[in-house]
């Protein structure tokens, strides 16, 4: 199984029946493919609707319906559209159970940097700052390193998206929970070791006992 799919599949296990979830662009979008059949997860798209469905077939594309990445999507029965003020009222008001986002950097107290690299790339924060502050649970779905360099740091060096808001980090190597007592490695992939994880993780972390093995 592809690294990205492994991450998406593990993230999908975090959700319960009835949860309202906002998925970021890129890897997080894949999470929708792995929701268990016996639960209903409601996807919110911050550009203005709930009950987002999969991409349409080419001949069924409606130019008025795109997701937060600007790609054509569909809506499921029971959907509702609204404007951006209502959409971010939903987000900021704590009505979204979980948001899944990527990261450039995250640190051991849950600070997140995912919206700019000074002098290089300044796409803007879009809805990320509101989502990270407003969602009840902030889950990062990301590859463990960027070109071999650690992304899970002692302290973020890039401009922050939000302070101390991250709850869970899921990478292809393991699952970390950020707690007031520190970052805890809860699960580890079957194809790695704690030592290997430590080697590519700058942040300090506690190893849970027992340490679960991530399902593939």
């Amino acid at each position, binding site marked *: 199984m592809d690294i990205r799919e492994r991450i998406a599949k593990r993230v999908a296990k975090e959700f319960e029946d009835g949860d309202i979830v906002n998925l970021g662009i890129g890897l997080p979008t894949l999470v929708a493919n792995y929701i268990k059949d016996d639960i209903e997860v409601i996807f919110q*798209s*911050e*550009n*203005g*609707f709930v009950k987002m469905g999969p991409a349409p077939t080419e001949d069924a594309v*409606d*130019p*008025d*319906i*795109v997701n*937060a990445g*600007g790609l054509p999507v569909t*809506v499921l029965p029971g959907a509702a*559209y*609204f*404007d*951006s*003020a209502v*959409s*971010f009222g939903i*987000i*900021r008001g704590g009505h979204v159970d979980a948001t899944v986002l990527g990261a450039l950097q995250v640190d051991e107290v849950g*600070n997140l940097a995912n919206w700019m690299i000074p002098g290089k*790339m*300044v*796409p*803007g*924060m*879009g*809805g*990320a*700052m*509101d989502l990270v*502050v*407003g969602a009840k649970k902030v889950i990062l779905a990301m590859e463990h390193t960027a070109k071999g360099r650690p992304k899970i740091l002692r302290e973020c060096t890039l*401009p*922050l*998206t*939000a*302070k*101390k808001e991250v709850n869970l980090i899921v990478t292809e190597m393991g699952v970390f929970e950020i707690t007031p007592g520190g970052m805890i490695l809860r699960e580890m992939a079957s194809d790695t070791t704690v030592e290997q994880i430590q080697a590519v993780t700058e942040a300090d972390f506690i190893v849970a006992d027992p340490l679960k093995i991530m399902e593939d």
Partner: protein
Amino acid sequence: MKKFISMDEAMDMLHDGMTVMIPGFMGVGTPETLVDGMVKKGIKDLHIICTDTARPNIGIGKLIVNGQVKKLYASHIGTNPETGRMMNEGLIDVTLIPQGTLAERIRAGGAGLGGFLTPTGVGTVVEEGKQKLVVDGKDYLLELPLTADVALIRGSKVDRKGNIWYNAATRNFNTVMATAAKIVIVEAQELVEVGEIDPNNVMTPGIFVDYVVKGDA
């Protein structure tokens, strides 16, 4: 009161240096015919308030590429590489605003509020220069209202009284922007008779709208 005007009459109201709100999310919900009119007229030094600059050939992206924008307030510019390039070369002054804060600032502008307290941006560069208040032990930024000279709106169905109904995800910033500008011009995708939109389902009441034009799209 005559609200229905021609595209030429609409363009006569737009001038160099104006602050203009333009809705749309990656172009969806953007009044393309009005934007094309602005490109054709070549209005310069615009201050644009929008959530993103779409793509180079779509929506607000066209104004960027054509060098008509001097100052930009947006939440995201990543999908239009030209915006970033022109920002880096000092051709456009860009202020980045979190998307929810942007929507709420425009709403506040239209609703007569002096500002609001949001937790978004606390502990980030967004808080620079802003008043910080503590309510119930939690930190908030005081964000101020945004208004404009003109708002260009795109309605899916519009009647001659200016009542608007938006389809699907095209609503986004249209509703708040329609409340927050001195002159509000709506581009009708479909022009309908007064009464054809159920008064219950009107999304922007006609009292907010000054002028209606028929779009090409």
